């Protein structure tokens, strides 16, 4: 017990950051699961964070209400943004969401109510570790159940082939917007919790590098199953500590190792780290398949 409390006194904030990053990665996972590459989820987190922070600091709204409001406002913006931008595909969608994110960041720098470049301060630090992880469990449960519902199958179909999906009767616009909105909701929730973890949030935390980091969590962990992003976020957020543990302290080397891991994963594990742990049933079946065909 004493050891545990020691662990938390040293690594408590790391554990919290892992949780927040995992939630953010899950928000991107939802969008990716419907085949849409969004670089706007960091901005949605910012919207959620600023909304919740402003509500608690300026208007004395209770913590839980502010979380809900932050998530809902982010979801609403996601919905409104999704309708026009989801006509775009691939790299064009990525860039539209990216420029949206930049506009949000610049707005946060310039507006008075957001506290400008110095950031928004004075949030009560109500977010507790257990609560973060409770939320993660809730979101994971939701996503796991979602996967085999009509919505989940529709996301999967759209990700695999949008044209074929629409020919099967799937309203692709509706489901893409839905994925985008759910993603924005989760991101907004994570942002709102983050705002009340830290006392302060600044515009820079929700910029381009944050958006890219989320993408990296999903890719390194694996974006085909819900636990992939969680794994990716946990590993990469803890990586600096792990490296410090094995004696690597210099910043540039840590950064280099980060990049190297990402490169190795994308080159050799296209489905992410989770493919290391997944049971090989389908892989075996495919081997059988080629043997069968070879004999024909």
């Amino acid at each position, binding site marked *: 017990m004493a050891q545990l409390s020691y662990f938390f006194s040293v690594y408590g904030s790391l554990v919290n950051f892992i949780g927040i990053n995992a939630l953010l990665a899950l928000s991107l996972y939802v969008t990716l699961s419907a085949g849409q590459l969004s670089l706007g989820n960091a901005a949605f987190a910012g919207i959620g964070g600023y909304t919740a922070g402003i509500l608690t600091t300026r208007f004395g709204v209770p913590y839980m209400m502010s979380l809900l409001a932050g998530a809902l406002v982010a979801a609403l913006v996601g919905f409104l943004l999704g309708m026009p931008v989801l006509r775009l595909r691939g790299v064009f969608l990525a860039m539209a969401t990216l420029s949206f994110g930049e506009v949000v960041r610049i707005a946060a720098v310039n507006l008075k109510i957001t506290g400008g470049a110095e950031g928004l301060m004075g949030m009560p630090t109500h977010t507790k570790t257990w609560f973060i992880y409770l939320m993660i469990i809730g979101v994971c449960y939701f996503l796991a159940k979602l996967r085999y519902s*009509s919505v989940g199958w529709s996301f999967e179909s759209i990700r695999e082939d949008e044209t074929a999906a*629409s*020919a*099967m*009767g799937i309203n692709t616009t509706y489901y893409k917007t839905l994925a985008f909105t759910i993603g924005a909701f989760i991101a907004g929730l994570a942002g709102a919790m983050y705002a009340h973890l830290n006392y302060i949030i600044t515009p820079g935390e929700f910029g381009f590098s944050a958006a890219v980091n989320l993408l990296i969590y999903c890719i390194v962990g694996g974006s085909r199953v819900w636990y992939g992003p969680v794994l990716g976020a946990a590993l990469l957020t803890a990586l600096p500590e792990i490296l410090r543990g094995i004696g690597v302290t210099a910043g540039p080397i840590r950064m280099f190792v980060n990049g190297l891991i990402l490169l190795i994963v994308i080159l050799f594990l296209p489905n992410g780290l989770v493919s290391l742990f997944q049971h090989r049933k389908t892989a075996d*079946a495919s081997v059988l398949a080629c043997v069968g*065909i070879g004999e024909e």
Partner: protein
Amino acid sequence: MLLDINNITRYFGGLCALEGVSFGVESGSVHGLIGPNGAGKTTLINILSGITSATSGNLRLDDQRIETFPAHKVAALGVARTFQNIRLFPVLTSLENVIAGQHLVAPRPLLPRLMCLSGTRRQEAVYQKQSMDILVRVGLGDRADFPAQHLSYGERRRLEIARALASRPRLLLLDEPVAGMRREEMLGVAALIRSLVREGMTILLIEHNMAFVMDLCSQITVLNFGSVITTGSPAEVGMHPEVIEAYLGKSDHHA
């Protein structure tokens, strides 16, 4: 008449892909659509299924105008299709492909699942059984757990038909369903088409294999350069001089 195609025209840029195409597809029949490569057959199927829009003209399905409908609405009216260049979901297994195809007929609501209601599991078992039955019907029962990308060419074509059948369509549009198939496989597909029609399904069939088309279809429409040359029974179409010339090249030239 289940499907009435009336004066459909489609331009791509300045290029005319279809010009004034009109014909009807009788309910409960197999209707063939033939013509040389590049005649506009696939463009027409794309328009029928709502994936492409027509530049002008109209389409009626059971007297309902559908030419402005997006693909998912056309599908909801009971139209399913396969693709010439096979558009399966490659990393999903055969069974999962068919399950995805059940979208319109097998609601899997989220809320009961979140609450772990007991009915969900039973319902899911019924749906999965239905998908499995369709796989067995196209002869892929033993391939249920294989990712689609590891199936042979002919198996993938059959899986595409299975996925289309999963939505229980009234009208099935098949774009070259037996291209690249071995003879035995081809016979299997022919038998499948016959049994589907016996159950009341209507089929519009694009195919290059003449024997296959002649054998199955009650009516055939011949397309060349985006226009209909003729529509008629296999025998009528076979006698048509323009068809012989357009489809086979001038027979008097070197023969």
